């Protein structure tokens, strides 16, 4: 099983992007402290997103006719890897670039493509994904937000989303809502709507997390009037569309590298204090080896995307392993540092360690919980 996941090599023309991109990133974040870089893809900077768009690093897999770069998932792999390794603030464009753009390209009308895709590629249309609701977390099919078709073909949207990443910074939300039937109909009757977040009737309240950041929000819809072209794809096919999107959402290097800024800061600490005993080398080697294997797995799943497949099970498998590593990093590095109480520790490293330690539970919540992913793998194994 899963034999299609094999080693893959990044095309040389994609590898060639690294030096110029690296220079751009370095210029932007040279003065950003490590604990901010450790925000990884939670760090928001609209100006930086626009700068990446102007330089041609967004919309990489979107066709040139829609303002994209006309390359593919491998190109995006390289760019994402560089951004995450450096700890660049990518949250602004992240969701649009990763999944909303490909979704609109795949399911959108010609008009929707012409309207949204060029802006996504410039980093000027920032998207969030409205999935979770107060009563719908892992049980996504139970969403209650509802859009009623109006006489003019438009929609009247009512309901509430919660834990929506970057809603307060976004221009649009792609919301999964019920357009027919009741919650008893489960996956039937759900649709995806593009909601302009500046419309009347929308209230967005940021939610502060345990680190003091507000990266997610609750979003209220009260008689929000949407135009007919808010519907993306087919009415009633929202569940199918969301499922296909998840292969993009779950397979990238961001499911491996969320703690890599901390890991690199710890390596610099080891170098500074000159520690190279066996226990230290063993931990360093183990974490490095696990990153290497997961990078190849992520690349292998990316190769399936390049081949035009929708490797949902493989992506789940890779994400579960990847987030486990991401969560092990702060635990093991914390133990290591505190096992040397007489060693001087840079307060910036300590602050970074505790930030990652506190936020790490989110790694296996966002984009599908560990338990949901394992359920998907079990189905792939033929157990369900």
């Amino acid at each position: 099983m899963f034999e299609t996941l094999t080693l893959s090599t990044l095309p040389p023309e994609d590898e060639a992007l690294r030096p110029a991109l690296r220079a751009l990133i370095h210029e932007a974040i040279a003065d950003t402290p490590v604990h901010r870089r450790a925000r990884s893809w939670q760090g928001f900077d609209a100006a930086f997103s626009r700068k990446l768009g102007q330089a041609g690093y967004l919309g990489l897999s979107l066709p040139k006719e829609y303002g994209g770069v006309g390359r593919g998932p491998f190109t995006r792999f390289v760019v994402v890897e560089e951004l995450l390794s450096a700890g660049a603030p990518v949250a602004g464009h992240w969701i649009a670039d990763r999944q909303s753009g490909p979704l609109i390209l795949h399911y959108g009308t010609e008009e929707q493509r012409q309207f949204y895709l060029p802006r996504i590629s410039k980093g000027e249309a920032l998207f969030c994904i409205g999935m979770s609701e107060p009563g719908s977390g892992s049980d996504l099919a139970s969403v209650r937000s509802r859009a009623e078709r109006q006489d003019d073909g438009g929609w009247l949207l009512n309901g509430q989303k919660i834990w929506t990443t970057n809603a307060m910074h976004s221009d649009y939300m792609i919301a999964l809502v019920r357009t027919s039937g009741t919650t008893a109909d489960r996956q039937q009757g759900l649709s995806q709507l593009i909601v302009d977040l500046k419309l009347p009737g929308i209230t967005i309240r940021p939610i502060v997390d345990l680190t003091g950041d507000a990266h997610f929000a609750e979003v209220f819809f009260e008689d929000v009037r949407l135009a007919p072209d808010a519907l993306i794809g087919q009415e009633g096919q929202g569940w199918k569309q969301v499922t296909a999107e998840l292969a993009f959402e779950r397979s990238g290097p961001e499911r491996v590298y969320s703690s890599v800024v901390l890991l690199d800061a710890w390596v610099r600490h080891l170098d500074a204090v000159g520690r190279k005993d066996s226990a230290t080398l063993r931990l360093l080697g183990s974490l490095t080896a696990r990153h290497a294997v997961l990078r190849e797995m992520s690349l292998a799943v990316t190769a399936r995307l390049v081949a035009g497949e929708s490797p949902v099970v493989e992506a789940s498998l890779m994400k579960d392993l990847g987030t486990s590593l991401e969560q092990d990093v702060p635990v093991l590095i914390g133990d290591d540092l505190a096992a040397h109480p007489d060693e001087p520790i840079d307060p910036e490293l300590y602050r970074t360690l505790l930030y990652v330690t506190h936020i790490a539970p989110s790694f296996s919540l966002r984009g599908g919980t560990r338990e949901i992913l394992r359920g998907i793998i079990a189905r792939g194994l033929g157990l369900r």
Partner: protein
Amino acid sequence: MDMSELIDPFARLIEDVCTPAAIRAIEEGGNTAPMWAAFTDSGFLDALVAEELGGASLSLADVAPLIALLGAHAVPLPVADTMVARAILAGAGLEIPAGPVAIATGTGPAPFGAVAAHILSGTPQAPVLTDARGQATGVHHDVDAYISGLDGAVLRPVAAIIRALLISGAAGRVMDMTVAYANERTQFGKPIGKQQAVQQQLSVLAEQAVAARIAAAIGARSGLFPRMLDAAIAKHGASLAAGQVSAIAHAVHGAIGISEEYDLQLLTRRLHGWRLSDGSESYWADVLGGLRIADRHAPTVDFIRAA
């Protein structure tokens, strides 16, 4: 070349000659000659030998699926080790012996040491071939043996990659067997595979089996004279997976899994043995950590991209 032209006949060969009964017979000290003759006659033993020296000039990555098949079927003879040994011996201009060759890389038990006719040590450039005079480990049905007085430490990276590939094959087969068992075995009125608690464990097993395969492939890609970095990643990942795969498979199988007559143990005993052979996960983590610290300021991504 279409790899199935290579893999299919090899798979048929193994299924013909390496039945569970044949494995058990050899483990009990039976005659290894008929099974070995089948592998010799197949021509596969010279797959890695250079074409001008009479071989097929395949790369280690080419034969990786074959080595994984050897693991998947718990082949009790050093077929992969002999393939590597023959290529090294031929490359050094030495005569290739007819019998099975095991590779000794340390003072611990050498894999297949008890069923080999010869032991390879030394270095790839200056290999040393000696008659096998191993000392039994005393472990039930073990085909490994202690080999003393030889230095083959330089061969440890390639031997570790062989072990990683064998682990990956065995882990994949254990996954298939365990999923099949979970779908058959009924308790509380339904197959145990319908229980979420069991499903979650099997998902972890599958993740580890795939991780072992990817890790081993990183090693195989590095070739017959692998870089230390690649060998370390390969064997660390495979060894890490071996223990977890075995533990979950046995947990799901229940008591029958640890019975001698059931075939699972043929694979899980090997997973444990190969995990410990040619350096465990911690041995290779030490090696990799040493390489990394020597590279001083290389960020993780840059360091692993070189693998």
